[in-house]
């Protein structure tokens, strides 16, 4: 594929991610942190997030499936997840975590429980979209083009 086409696809995808609210400003900040001294920074951080968040969500679900749910632990997981997602700009995941914690503060266990599925869902969506984005990025780099909108 043509580099410019790839670049346009990349831009469109990124724009759609912002439009759908999956990503926020923070992701741009993150991209801006990436420079010649620190190539692949975004990829590194996001991969770290996938790993971290995946682990947290698994723990969360397994904790909820137990007989005696340790809500303190659950809250700690969600707090972690919220912090991570805020850092990389995963807006939707962050907002679900926010909702979860609001329910938690109100002692609404059912509300918390209802957040688990959306959380998982949002994480899967986020992961697939971002992986697609990174794949595109690599294609662009491989094709010798520069990644658009990375310039400041």
């Amino acid at each position, binding site marked *: 594929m043509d580099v410019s086409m790839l670049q346009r696809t990349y831009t469109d995808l990124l724009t759609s991610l*912002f439009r759908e609210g999956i990503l*926020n*400003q*923070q992701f*741009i*900040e*993150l991209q*801006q*942190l*990436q*420079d010649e*001294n*620190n190539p692949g*920074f975004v990829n*590194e*951080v996001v991969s*770290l*997030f996938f790993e*971290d*968040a995946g682990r947290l969500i698994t723990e969360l679900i397994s904790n909820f499936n137990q007989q005696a749910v340790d809500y303190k632990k659950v809250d*700690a997981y969600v*707090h*972690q997840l*919220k*912090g*991570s997602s*805020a*850092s*990389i*700009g995963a807006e939707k995941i962050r907002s679900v975590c926010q909702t979860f914690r609001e329910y938690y503060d109100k002692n609404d266990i059912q509300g918390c429980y209802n957040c688990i599925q959306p959380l998982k869902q949002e994480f899967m969506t986020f992961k697939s979209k971002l992986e697609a984005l990174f794949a595109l990025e690599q294609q662009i780099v491989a094709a010798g083009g520069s990644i*658009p*909108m990375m*310039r*400041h």
Partner: protein
Amino acid sequence: MTWFIIAGIMEQKPRIVNQIKLNFSLVWPELSLKSWRTHLYNQYFVTRKVRETWRRKLLLLWIVGWIVFSLSLLWYMNSTQVEKRRETLGNMCDERARMLQDQFNVSMNHLQALAILVSTFHHSKNPSAIDQATFARYAERTAFERPLTSGVAYAVKVLHSEREQFERMQGWTIKKMYSSKKSTARDQGDGGSTEVTPQEISPVAYEYAPVIFAQDAYKHVVSLDMLSGHEDRENILRAREVGKGVLTAPFPLVKSNRLGVILTYAVYKSELPSNATPNERIEAAIGYLGGIFDIEALVDKLLHQLACKQSISVNVYDTTNGQIRMYGSNQTGRGMSHISALNFGDPSRKHEMHCRFTQKPPLPWLAITTSFGTLVIAFLIGYIFSATVTRIAKVEDDYHQMMELKKRAEAADVAKSQFLATVSHEIRTPMNGVLGMLQMLMDTELDVTQQDYVRTAQASGKALVSLINTVLDQAKIESGKLELEAVPFNLRSLLDDTLSLFSGKAQEKGLELAVYVSDQVPETLVGDPGRIRQIITNFMGNSIKFTERGHIYLTVHLVDEAASLWEVETETDPQSRTNNTLSGYAVASRKRSWENFSIFQHGSNPFDRPYVSSSSDQITLIISVEDTGVGIPYEAQSRIFTPFMQVGPSIARIHGGTGIGLSISKCLVGLMKGEIGFASRPQIGSTFTFTAVLTRNRSNSTSSEYKPTEFYGMNALIVDHRAVRAQVTSYHLRRLGIKSELTTNLSQFLSKPSLNMVLIDKETWSLEAITWSNFASMFTSSTIPKLFILANPTLKNNSPSFQDVNLNIILKPLRASMLQVSLQRALFGGGDKGNCRNGVAGNLSLGSLLQGKRILVVDDNSVNLRVAAGALKKYGAEVTTADSGKRAIEFLKPPHTFDACFMDIQMPEMDGFEATRRIRGMEAVLNDRIKRDEVCREINGKVIQNWHIPILAMTADVIQATHEECLKSGMDGYVSKPFEGEQLYREVARFFKPNTKLS
């Protein structure tokens, strides 16, 4: 009774509560009162229902009780009245009976006397002294003695043996009294009237009692044998047996057709002893006297005599055998009656008098009204108590409702502020997205128009964010959450920065901007620079908005100085003062904007009061912003500080703004223990002034403003025909260490040898029509000082004389840094041009701050850790990471080489606060040892007197993390997570000097 007691208690309760409240609120302010209230409140809800039902029951009981009472009262009063009536009736009846009896007795006595008369003059004399005519005449004439007798007759006892002789003597035969089957009981008088017409000769009997004398009216009974009549016979036999008057049963009289009785007396031959036996009496009887009593007439007469207002009906009965009515109507009325016994002297016959009121008893009005009145009063009292109790209950209800509403209102107020804070916070997040996208858009290839659109959109977005921040401030102020920082800062550079914000707009409008800070104001002050800047920005923003010509002049003095300025201003001639302004336009008197401040109100002369600020660390600044704008209409001046209030709706349309700025400024000034005021004259200008209490900076650890040393000892000449403007220039030069002299006339000072530079205002330059050539000609060629023209940006390039290469143009507004650069360039040549022109860009300066710094980032979240580290590395910092508070402590155990630490607050095991506390603890121990010279002070070539690594908290939620909490645990500040460039810069700038300037 319980009802009363309960009502009383209920009445007293609120009063007691009030008293208790008063007492309690005096001693313990809030806590005890609250608990007491809660207690009451609970008790109230428990007892309320019970009380309600009790109240109803008691009310019902009260009503029923009083109904019973009033009924019994009615009954009692009525019965008393009836009793009284009965008594009256009895008295009347008895009276009548007695009188009747008396009169009857009188008649009876007279009849007895008549009997004695007959016995004396008829039987004891021979021949008889009485014949029929005599008897009749006598009886007639003595009839008045016997008012009740209608007639008398006398019969003699004749034995059968004497009959013939008797008949012969009398000349008539003894006739039998008619005793038909119908009227056997009728006497001779009666028989004589209707039934007795066919008189028969009396049959043979043992003895006879023929009538020999009779009153004229009863002449027809003469010769009738009384013993032949059944009634009469019995009467006669009884009379002679007892020797007393004997009465017959009542019967209707012949003539009057009234009822009557016959009284019979026996006449004896001789005087009999009183204890004579009946047989003796029978033997001795020789005749019988009978009298007819007209009972009805008798009673009528009697009643007539006794007629009185209360008419009663009287019935007289003979009750010997059954009840035979003798007098009165036969209708037996119902109701009360009284029976009096009558004694007519005949023990064998019984008579009774029955009395009855003719009228029905009147209704017992007194009783009725009394009982009814009582009932009404009782009902009224019941109603009053009930209403009172209901009212009390209602008031209590209302009170509780009010309390509830108050609580809710307070909660709503808190919620509102919270909401505002949250919403503002939440709006900022998407706005960041918008702004970020716009930034991205600007980086793409756009044509000029698109660039313009995007720039406009971004500017609007930024304006919106700043507006949201303002609203957030307002919310914080209202909820009392806004707290001021106390950090050392340099006021002069702060004001320079603030001024530069407005230089663009001022340039557009052609306004002259200037700042002047009195020399007496210390270099470094401790306070909240952000808030001071906010107030000044607000003032300046308003001034810019409403000023179309002239100038905006920001001045800072100590309050002590202001007092002397006052003196100066009062001394100045008004005419010259109008000209003695920055731009020559008239201004609103600055003095008038602060003359209402209480700080100037002590004593008439401000010099009399001792200055607090000079004696302690407290410094009171007076800061004024003076403009030559349209001013504020007098009618709007009173509400200038009211939130959301603007001069008029058109103002909002033309100039925009929410009208919240001044109100926030006022609050902020209040927080700084200062005052705010203004003076404004329409079409001339406004001057806003505020005071703020700050403290002197005692510690020397923080650096003062960077002062270039290269200009020390230089002399400058300022040529300006406006003294105020010259003063401003002089002030900026002084900051650079340059001594300056002022003059209005250039030629006077040109001979001075040590002159390094001459600064001429462009206006004066034009006015005096100086050119470079004639300027240069004034000096000997070796010592020509550098010439600088101070110009407003809009005025540049319009005069050919400025294109002269030897002229250095310095653009106003003057700022120390800019002036420094310009002078450097002109005097020493070179220098990086434009570097400091408009301040340094945020990230660049952040880079300059963080370059080469060793920073420890602590966060348990690996992603966050990575991002934060990445961000800091980006700015050139050397970053070390730690994933827990414990590891952070290990890293930061002094001595170490870190320059700063960013610490997450919320971490498992050991949170940021705790970790910071421990680090501070370790530092304190070491510092203590350093003081006692126990350890070496030199580490890595640096001498460290006092270990204190700046620790900044990282937190996702800026609102929740209060500054105070961070400070309490020993942190130096906080930054939001993810990092925001400006905030990071602001916080970091407090600890690091920019590397570029140090180099």
